[in-house]
């Protein structure tokens, strides 16, 4: 049972990393960002390329691969997403989906279709009360909680964060104050993409790596965002961890049904609380 809880927290942490970016982009820009799959997968592929160069320095490699993703996401924001502000949701959805198609095909071109194997970078286990828990998973959960606290203070204490929170509430109001909202939106977008890459980098060693890996996790993150509420930061945190737990508990009894159970939960939530977006 302890294993299940640890597993659930790990999945929840990964889902949190990925869905926070989605939630922020939706809340501020009203864009459903399918290109998140691309930034997530790019992070992972940057990681496996860099791991071959610097063996043994996982933390360094992980940081580098997140930095690699930042310019890519800036380009996407500047040339595609920025033109889509105020458009109907269908077109933003289709355009970002097209970006992810292009990006994933480029990844297939460069790295090939075959899955890459990768092992746990720490590989040690924490022993207590006769249980052996992988330290790496515990580390992921710790990072998620630290990130949650850091993001909370970022949005409450710093000027940039405050402007973003204000834009989540009322975009036009912020614009009326003479603040260039677009600049802050691109910061938010790049931040979200970097967090998706962080999620990918941390999840890669304990999952399988292939060009389409982003799609299924993105669907799960959409479920998280819908359950937690679009643009609601605390709600995203809670729903990520509770849906992670749902997945872990389902997987314990019925391993194939884990992802489906998340969607069933999402459907139930949508029945009782339809969101008009």
């Amino acid at each position, binding site marked *: 049972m302890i294993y299940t809880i640890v597993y659930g927290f790990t999945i929840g942490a990964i889902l949190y990393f990925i869905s926070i970016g989605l939630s922020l982009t939706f809340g501020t820009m009203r864009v459903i960002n399918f290109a998140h799959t691309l930034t997530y997968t790019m992070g992972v592929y940057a990681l496996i390329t860099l791991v071959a160069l610097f063996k043994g320095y996982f933390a360094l490699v992980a940081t580098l691969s997140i930095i690699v993703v930042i310019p890519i996401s800036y380009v996407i924001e500047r040339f595609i997403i920025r033109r889509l502000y105020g458009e109907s949701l269908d077109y933003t*959805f289709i355009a970002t989906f*097209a970006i992810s198609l292009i990006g994933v095909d480029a990844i297939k071109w460069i790295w090939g279709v075959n899955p890459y194997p990768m092992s746990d970078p720490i590989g040690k286990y924490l022993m207590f009360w006769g249980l052996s828990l992988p330290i790496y998973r515990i580390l992921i959960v710790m990072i998620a909680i630290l990130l949650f606290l850091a993001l909370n203070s970022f949005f409450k204490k710093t000027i940039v964060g405050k402007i973003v929170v204000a834009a989540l509430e009322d975009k036009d109001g912020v614009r009326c104050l003479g603040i260039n909202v677009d600049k802050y939106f691109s910061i938010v977008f790049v931040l979200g993409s970097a967090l998706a890459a962080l999620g990918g980098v941390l999840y890669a060693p304990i999952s399988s790596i292939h060009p389409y890996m982003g799609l299924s996790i993105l669907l799960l993150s959409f479920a998280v965002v819908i359950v937690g509420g679009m643009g609601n930061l605390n709600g995203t945190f809670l729903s990520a961890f509770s849906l992670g737990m749902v997945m872990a508990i389902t997987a314990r009894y019925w391993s194939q049904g884990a992802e*489906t159970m998340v969607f069933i939960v999402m459907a139930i939530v949508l029945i009782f609380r339809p969101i008009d977006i």
Partner: protein
Amino acid sequence: MNKAPASHANHLNANPMKEHGFIDFLVITGGFLLITPILSVHRVTDFMIFCIFVMSFDLMYGYMGRLSFGHLLFLGTGAYGSGLFIRYISGNPLLAILAGIAVAGLLGMLLGLIIVRTTGACFALINLAFNHIGFFLVLSPLRQITRGEDGFGVSASTLGFLNFSSRPIMFGFVLFCLLLVFYLLKRLTSSPFGIMLRSIKEDETRVRFLGYNTFLYKWLNFALAGSLAGLAGTLTALNYNYVNPNAMDVHSNVGVVFASLIGGAGTLYGALVGGVVYMVISNFLPIYIHRWEMFLGFSLLIITFRFRKGVWGYILSLWESGIKKRLLRRPTEEVANR
């Protein structure tokens, strides 16, 4: 929006509907017969089935303005419904087709109760979620019946002259279905029901404010689009003689969205043109261009930024501007002649 004057004109003439419909039938039949010698009978049958599917998608996206990213669920349900009917109950192909449509329609009614409440991105995503659930159900828990990943063969028995293993007869039957669906949708979209759908697309709040029960219309339309997709599914099963979970693979949904957009959403001819263009691209492009997904992505981007009306919309607007020029020119010429 272009339809309104046309339907108005129909009321003025004595019996124009038949003539107009007849021209449509000639154009569609002629068009598909023309491309048959270039491609092959089997391929064109496949294209026509896909066109039926695109039209059912267009009923929801083009006319009602709800983008679904999980419409393949209904195609797959139709395919499995008719396939399982043939496998376990009876080999009669017409009954199997009816069974497939009925199952997909029932699923549409059931899911519609939930899905139709949402709009925009939520609608797309919840469809995707249900498609995922359906794919999973077929793949794993219902493995005893559906034989999981392997799928199963479908061999319908011969009914009179309807021998579905013969390619020309399959072609003719699919063409008949296509024309039937086209006629049905043409009537439907120019009826008050269709006008209601387009009004919901424009502004649902106002329609509700006028006292209409928009939920009912959306629900009916969702079920109808589902059952038409189910028809496309049954025809797919009969055409390929087997069913497997790929029929409702979540990742293939982009195809129908792309087809609908490239042809021009919101017109029936647009759906036909888009279906054929997409099928030609996806069937023949991978032979010449290895990175065809990238090509698809770039063309989707171009469509969203520059070419929103699609091929058919572009042709229509060219034609209309041509007419306008002629109409504008005529009075000036008359003045000049005087």
